[in-house]
């Protein structure tokens, strides 16, 4: 089954004279369990595409199907429900400053329906162990390094058992070696879950982790290079 299926998607910002088309006629497909990288020059519309797939924006034109749900024409509430099944990792880690690593991850696990508090807490601990942070569970984001914070963010995204993981430049704030480690961890864990992954990146050092690379320019996808 396809995790993401997009057909002739276009998107524009602004109105009237200020109207700027950012995405033009994009079609793509990501299968479940596939790890896909999206690259392209700054401003070509990568983030915009990601927010549309992530059900964070309303679709203006074209068809978008994510995890079997149609997003074109979906209302606020519907999109919120689709988002529960999508894990997101941001450029800045976006952890909650007032929560410990464990509590941050549990904010992800809390989205799981029908699980008791203990089960959700154990889930959070399990994912923190998986990203190698079993010794840092009680620490606040403030006391963690950049790489550790990004790993907490990965654990948080995975704790809700997503079937699709979206990451926007997850290595931008990390040095080369740490960035590579983090992305490899991300790929390994997603594989184990049979979860599709879409990573937006500029970082040439991590291109080889992908099953497939999509290149974008000026709002359009370039044909795949073999």
């Amino acid at each position: 089954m396809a995790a993401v299926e997009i057909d002739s998607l276009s998107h524009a910002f602004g109105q009237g004279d200020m109207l700027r088309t950012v995405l033009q006629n994009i079609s793509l497909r990501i299968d479940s369990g596939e790890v896909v990288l999206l690259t392209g020059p700054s401003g070509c519309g990568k983030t915009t595409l990601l927010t549309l797939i992530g059900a964070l924006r309303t679709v203006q034109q074209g068809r978008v199907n994510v995890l079997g749900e149609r997003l074109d024409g979906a209302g606020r509430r519907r999109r919120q429900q689709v988002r529960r099944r999508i894990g997101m990792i941001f450029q800045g880690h976006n952890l909650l400053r007032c929560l410990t690593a464990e509590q941050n991850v549990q904010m992800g696990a809390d989205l799981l329906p029908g699980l008791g508090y203990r089960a959700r807490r154990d889930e959070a601990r399990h994912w923190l162990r998986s990203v190698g942070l079993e010794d840092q569970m009680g620490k606040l984001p403030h006391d963690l390094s950049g790489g550790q914070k990004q790993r907490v963010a990965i654990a948080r995204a995975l704790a809700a058992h997503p079937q699709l993981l979206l990451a926007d430049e997850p290595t931008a704030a990390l040095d080369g070696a740490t960035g590579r480690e983090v992305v490899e961890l991300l790929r390994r864990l997603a594989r184990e879950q049979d979860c599709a992954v879409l990573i937006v990146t500029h970082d040439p050092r991590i291109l080889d982790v992908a099953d497939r690379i999509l290149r974008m320019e000026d709002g359009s996808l370039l044909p795949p290079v073999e």
Partner: protein
Amino acid sequence: MRNLWQGRKIPLSWLLLSRQPVRLLVALAGISFAGILMFMQLGFRDGLFDASVTVHRLFDADLVLISPRSASSIRMAGFPRRRLVQTLADPDVEGVSPVHWGLMLWRNPETRLNRAILALGFNPDDPFFLDPGLSQKTEVLKQKGRILFDQLSRPEFGPIADWYREGRTVETEIAGNRIRVEGLVSLGTSFGADGNLLTSTETFLDLSPQKPRGSIEVGLIRLRPGSDPQQVVERLQLRLPDDVKVLTKQGFIEFEKNYWKSGTSIGFIFTLGAAMGFVVGCVIVYQVLYTDVSDHLPEYATLMAMGHRLSHLLGVVVREGFYLAVMGYVPAYLAGQGLYWFVRDATSLPVGMNATRALTVGGMILVMCMLSALLAMRRLVDADPAEIF
């Protein structure tokens, strides 16, 4: 119950508050301040109204007759004494006692200046007082021209209590008649009266010769044990002509309080003071919650991007407001208790904590925090999950 416990989530509201202790303290200080202000203003208001009925509370009566033309303790009109005697025809009435009640001009024996004092004239043989100590003292009033002076009266009446305790013979004039102080009592001042004196019916009438003989201002009625005062009130009101009003003792007390509450702006002024406290509290809590939401806007947006419901996030803000209300109320309550104790000690005004006021102020604080939370929530709508990547 178990399900609720199992279903619980990370206590985000509590952590948002407690991990920023300085902001929390500022908020709590603001709420407590508002609460203390409300306790103070409402306490003074109720205290002053209570003080206005110290004299009314003295009597051991079940029902009270007054003239419908009486407006308050400082403007008591007379009615025929016969009416009081007529009530004895009712099977439930056990005994009656007439009381004369009015303001008189007291001459300060030191400065020779006149000042209005509230005088009560009653039958010293059957004084109808609740306090047995007071009833014993009335024995001396059987001699004409003797009075009991309230030692809590304002000092403008002269150093009466001091002189009396020194053993001097304290004499002065009321409306040109000589009177002698034969004892001291402790009643207390009120809005209407800066001082009080007690005397016998006969002396009272000598001191106010213009009053018609057969007329009294207050009629006290004692009922047989087991009778229902409300029923007797209705019966007597039917039987007696319109020139008297029949009240229960509580009704008599309310009659006086109502005059000061609705006939003057005293209540309004103190209520306004309490309202100011409310507004100040609202502003402070709103500021704190609004800044809190603004500061964490990217985090709220992240939670929304993860799929948390907007209503869940609104709930976080509401709970923050609730915790602030509870945590701010406790110190306000304790400080209020301390303040009342201090005021009682310093002014002899009967202010104290009571359940109604504790609940009123608690409710006001809760409303204040919830209102602020609601306003601060509007900021949450600005959290756009699409803008966080």
